[in-house]
């Protein structure tokens, strides 16, 4: 590892441990990390603004006539710093908000309302199609033929039995089909009742109440399931951080983790002893 990498590892490990220390309580290390973080992000944003917006889109613009209006809009925004003319910034707000609203209307119709409506309309109770029934007949016939030719125990017969079983499941009203239908019905019922819950102009009484209650139950399953599912992803993130901390504890990183950790604990204990820590609230 080069010196730059080792210095970087020390910086990264230090910042990581500083932020982790928030779990224990608010402390100078967290404050240090937090304020540095604030500064670094703003510095980074500035760099990005200069090099990815200002230079390519304004400074090196192909047609300056097209760049003047947005620059004016931008400067008008800055009038907020001058209270007397700060009303000029309204023009910029009007542009920005008008643009966002105009963009949202057709996009929301397509991406949410139409798309979700299309996905929700499914036959609630399905019947086997003629083709599926025909396939079942063929599979049964193959099974009977194979059984007659090969006997009951031959692998070909077993395969044919398997094929016939799956053909039977789609060619007749089977448990599999019933399961699929029930799933569709539950999905439909869920969408329907949750939408009912969001009616604001009717008092939730009588049948409406029942429907909206069902809606609430669906909402609860959604909250619980989503919560449970996200846990996996969040642990993956945490695992990765811990892995990095572990990697930085070895000799090739000049023992960054243990040294920083010992220093931090030392300072915190010292502050606790001298009573300075009581200035910081725990939580």
């Amino acid at each position: 590892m080069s010196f730059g990498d080792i210095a970087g590892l020390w910086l990264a490990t230090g910042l990581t441990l500083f932020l982790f220390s928030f779990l224990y309580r608010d402390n100078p290390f967290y404050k240090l990390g937090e304020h540095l973080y604030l500064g670094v992000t703003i510095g980074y944003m500035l760099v990005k603004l200069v090099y990815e917006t200002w230079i390519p889109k304004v400074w090196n613009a192909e047609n300056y006539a097209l760049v003047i209006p947005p620059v004016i809009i931008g400067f008008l925004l800055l009038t907020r710093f001058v209270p007397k003319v700060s009303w000029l910034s309204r023009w910029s707000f009007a542009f920005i908000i008008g643009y966002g609203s105009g963009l949202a209307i057709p996009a929301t119709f397509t991406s949410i309302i139409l798309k979700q409506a299309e996905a929700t309309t499914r036959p609630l109770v399905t019947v086997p199609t003629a083709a599926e029934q025909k396939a079942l007949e063929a599979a049964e016939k193959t099974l009977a033929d194979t059984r007659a030719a090969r006997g009951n125990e031959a692998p070909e017969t077993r395969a044919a039995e398997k094929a016939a079983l799956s053909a039977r499941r789609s060619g007749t009203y089977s448990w599999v089909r019933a399961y699929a239908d029930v799933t569709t019905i539950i999905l439909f019922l869920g969408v329907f009742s949750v939408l009912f819950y969001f009616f604001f102009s009717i008092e939730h009484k009588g049948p409406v109440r029942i429907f909206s209650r069902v809606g609430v139950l669906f909402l609860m399953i959604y909250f619980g399931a989503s919560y449970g599912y996200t846990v996996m992803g969040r642990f993956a993130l945490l695992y990765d951080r811990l892995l990095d901390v572990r990697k930085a504890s070895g000799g090739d990183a000049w023992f960054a983790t243990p040294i920083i950790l010992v220093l931090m604990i030392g300072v915190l204990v010292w502050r606790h002893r001298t009573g300075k820590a009581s200035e910081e609230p725990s939580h």
Partner: protein
Amino acid sequence: MRELFEKLLKMDRRWIFLLVGIALMVPILKPLKLPGLKASTPVQDLYTYIEGLPEGSKVLISFDFDPASKPELEPMGAAIVRHCMRKKLKVVAMTLWVTGASLAQRVVESEATAAGAKYGEDYVYLGWKPGNVAVITGMREDIHVVFPKDSKQTDLSKIPMMQDIRRLRDFDLAFSFAAGSPGLDTWIAYGADKEKVKMGGGSTAVNVPSMAVFVQSGQLVGFIGALRGAAEYELLMNFSGTATRGMDGIALGSYLVAALIILANIGYWLTRKPKGVA
């Protein structure tokens, strides 16, 4: 008993933090190799497909993610690169996310060095170019125009393995490990579907449900879903890498959370009743 549970319910949450930390740290220090990990069909399909590619087949891998999604996507990227190297396939790596440029390079370089692969003959890292969809459409016409130089600023025309890789359709398989858009869906819509290139990929847990469509429709030869998918792939590759150990950590963590919830509820029901009444 009741007092114990009362204490438990009022437990300082910092104890929970500590327990979570321990649960995730244990497998890092010592792999547990919990049984039960089994390759799901899309992961198995991908593995089988790569196994079936003849030596020297050309593979494109696009690492379309940023540091925030690195924990979930880097392990699967590493596993695929490792598999390709093991099979002696020619790997061309790149990224559509500027913030992922150095991440992708690190994965490819470390796996390639471990496998003893030669730069320029066995693998190439092209780096990042702005344009998102335009990069993909450009690569359909001519990769050498979109990427005149690789990430080391070598002319593509001077790189041996790039001589017969000119267009997207020259690849036998293309991958995208995507944390969002542009990513797997973009590659499918603008690359694979148009050029009939076989496509595989992986995504973060949040995106797994929306990617399921492409798996079902057969537009992907295989798919790796989140860290768990990566662990499954590592299982097929027969090594225990970051993902496998991560799965151990997640398993311990999940069980811990579940146990805490159950304990808290037992406590809640026990302490709920007013004193003196049975």
